[in-house]
């Protein structure tokens, strides 16, 4: 039975990876171009006037955040569009009629989202080498935070897709929730620059913990205690995992 589930998991994962690699011009290339523009405008042009931030050049400061932003948006976008597409054209039924446990479906889609998030993150890191020197303070932390963040946003994308009833519904959350939280998540500034009250408000933004722990992995500095940040990310992962699995078990949005 375990071998059967393993084959099913590999099939879903392979299918998901094939899906985004087949259309790499739409999935991998645009975020790389966009982040390159961020590096040119905010890093090179404006960044030189800003000077140092947290004891490093501005472009070095924003680099981990920009990579993290790519990981977040792409892991989310992969699963929300893939799962909603499968629901919309009803080929999700291929998995529903087969003896595939919901846990395997969840892991397959999440692995696909993680694969795209990490692929784009890696490509963006390569682009960053044109603008900044490559240095990693703790590669284990970089890898761990990248994996946990992409899995977290893959599950968030899945939940969005489960409740979505139209293609508009899958763009509302990224536009009105994800993008503002990402921009306010400490990618472009240290929260130490904010007034005390806004520093406290910023702590309610989960993306702040991801960006800062990721920056710690690259640069060795963070506005947030690393252990706290990792606990928050793990906690969100656990909650979204339980919610996603519960929704799949209940057949919300996919079974009448």
């Amino acid at each position, binding site marked *: 039975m375990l071998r059967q589930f393993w*084959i099913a998991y590999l*099939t879903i994962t392979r*299918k998901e990876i094939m899906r985004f690699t087949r259309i790499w011009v739409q999935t991998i290339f645009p975020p790389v171009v966009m982040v390159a523009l961020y590096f040119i405008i905010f890093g090179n042009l404006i960044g030189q006037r800003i000077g140092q931030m947290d004891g490093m050049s501005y472009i070095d400061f924003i680099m981990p955040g920009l990579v993290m932003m790519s990981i977040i948006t792409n892991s989310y976008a992969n699963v929300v569009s893939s799962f909603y597409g499968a629901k919309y054209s009803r*080929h999700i*039924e291929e998995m529903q*009629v*087969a*003896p595939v446990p919901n846990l395997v479906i969840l892991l397959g889609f999440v692995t696909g989202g993680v694969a795209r998030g990490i692929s784009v993150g890696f490509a963006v890191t390569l682009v960053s080498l044109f603008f900044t020197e490559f240095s990693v303070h703790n590669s284990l932390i970089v890898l761990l935070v990248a994996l946990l963040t992409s899995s977290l946003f893959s599950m968030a994308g899945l939940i969005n897709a489960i409740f979505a009833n139209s293609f508009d519904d899958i763009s509302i959350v990224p536009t009105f929730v994800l993008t503002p939280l990402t921009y306010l998540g400490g990618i472009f500034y240290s929260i130490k620059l904010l007034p005390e009250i806004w520093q406290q408000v910023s702590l309610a933004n989960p993306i702040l913990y991801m960006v800062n722990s990721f920056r710690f992995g690259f640069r060795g500095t963070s506005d947030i205690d690393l252990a706290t940040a990792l606990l928050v990310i793990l906690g969100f992962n656990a909650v979204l995992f339980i919610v996603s699995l519960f929704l799949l078990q209940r*057949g919300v949005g996919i079974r009448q």
Partner: protein
Amino acid sequence: MFALEIENLKKTYASGLQALRGIDLSVEQGDFFALLGPNGAGKSTCIGIISGLVNKTGGSVRIFGHSIDDQFLLAKSMLGSVPQEFNFNTFEPVEEIIINQAGYYGVPARVARQETERYLKQLGLWQHRRSQARRLSGGMKRRLMIARALVHKPRLLILDEPTAGVDIELRRSMWDFLETINQQGTTIILTTHYLEEAERMCRNVAIIDEGSIIQNSSMPALLQQLNSETFVLYLRHEIERVPELPSFDQIELLDRNSIEVEVPESLTINDLIGELESQHIVVQRMRNKVNRLEELFVKMTAKSDRSSFA
């Protein structure tokens, strides 16, 4: 052993629609079984529950003795289903759709490729294996869904309108294919609006209407219930009015060269021809107005509110 056992199966949708009102149904292993009913009768809901696409409200379903509630993974592994509507990713190549489906059932890649090749060749799709599914014709898409449903070698195959929109030549080749699959041991449950198809292939039949089973018997036993058949007769010479045939009271003049006559069970075609000949009317050709099962089906499920489009 039963391939499928359904007891007191109920489904009420969130809208309040009672699609199934507690149906009982058993299909024996190896059977070719027809599940018939008018549109909205509950057939697709029933198939949806068996396949795991619809949540039931009550009752039980067992596939080869395995409950879809407690042993759903085992039950599902024995089932292949061909739904009424196309439900594959139309942007994927044909071959990939089938190999992936095999993967969901835990079939190793090498075996999946072999089985895919086998079924694509048998169903005449091998030359289209690398085409995106959206480029296939309607008939090819139906065959693709049959190949996909068979790739893991299910013991029970459910076909929901498998020949809808398929031309007659292709439909006949699909009948031959399904009969071969059935002879090799696969139990088949078929829903169709082509009653000729059900009459030709199925040994047993259930008719479902408004969420209840109104008939469940062998096909010959069902057809014996037909107490009359209507024939269309094509005449060699033109006639002006409806001929007077003492033994037959349901006669209609369709045009000057053809009449329609209802022949009760107590009389024979010879009786009819004899009475026509006595009036010097020569019958050139004749045919059933509709096939026998269709005639019975219409009588059993006839409802005043369905008789018009209004």
